[in-house]
């Protein structure tokens, strides 16, 4: 890393902080993607109403977790 101190004199965040940040961001992206794709796939297999909400929520959780894990790993291998 070329820079250890930012413009405002803040020290560089630790590795764990990056991994956490990667996880949070991956989680957000994964949840958004899961909401999109989950809606389509749940509608396609014929879910409606309350069941549809549950299906979308499950897809969102799953893809959020997967994305978050992968992005946390991606952060982790580069610090």
């Amino acid at each position, binding site marked *: 890393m070329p820079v250890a101190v930012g413009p405002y004199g803040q020290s560089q965040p630790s590795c764990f902080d990056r991994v956490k940040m990667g996880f949070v*961001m991956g989680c957000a992206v994964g949840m958004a993607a899961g909401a999109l794709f989950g809606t389509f796939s749940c509608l396609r297999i014929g879910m409606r109403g309350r069941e549809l909400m549950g299906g979308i929520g499950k897809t969102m959780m799953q893809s959020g977790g997967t994305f978050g894990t992968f992005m946390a790993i991606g952060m982790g291998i580069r610090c």
Partner: protein
Amino acid sequence: MEEYAREPCPWRIVDDCGGAFTMGTIGGGVFQAIKGFRNSPVVSGRPVGLLRSRGPVAGGGDGAGDTFLLASSQGVSHRLRGSLTAVKTRAPQLGGSFAVWGGLFSMIDCSLVQVRGKEDPWNSITSGALTGAVLAARNGPVAMVGSAAMGGILLALIEGAGILLTRFASAQFPNGPQFAEDPSQLPAAPLPPSPFGDYRQYQ
């Protein structure tokens, strides 16, 4: 991360490819370890599922819970072995497909940078969509369109999250955005406006 972001274009491909392979292998190892442990056939119970079963987790989960109660310590060691088998079989595969995705993605990204002469989010969105299309090319045009839409939407989400985070974080902690983005997307991300324009000159 910063010197990564400024990686000159041909070498970025190699870098992305390797990074994606590592990420896929480690992540695949984590997930397949869990999955292999849950789905592993146990000696004392009925075999609840094959290692390669890709079906919904919920169906396999109940049966796996049943057999887990039946399983003795020997069963646990069998499960660990199944988990190891799953990791050894699946994780390199996932790493390979990640590497293919990452390599092709950054190849197209670099080509777009060369052709358009600028780096912005549209580059990576376009290259995500094109990568999806190219990798699904053998499955016919419909699959190509679907896969391209998926890649494009995914990359757009990632880019959007990166931009949002940059804006949000630049107000609070100035060091945030440089690590808060997916590394393979970082090269094409736009340079954030105020505090980071001169930030790069610190190196």
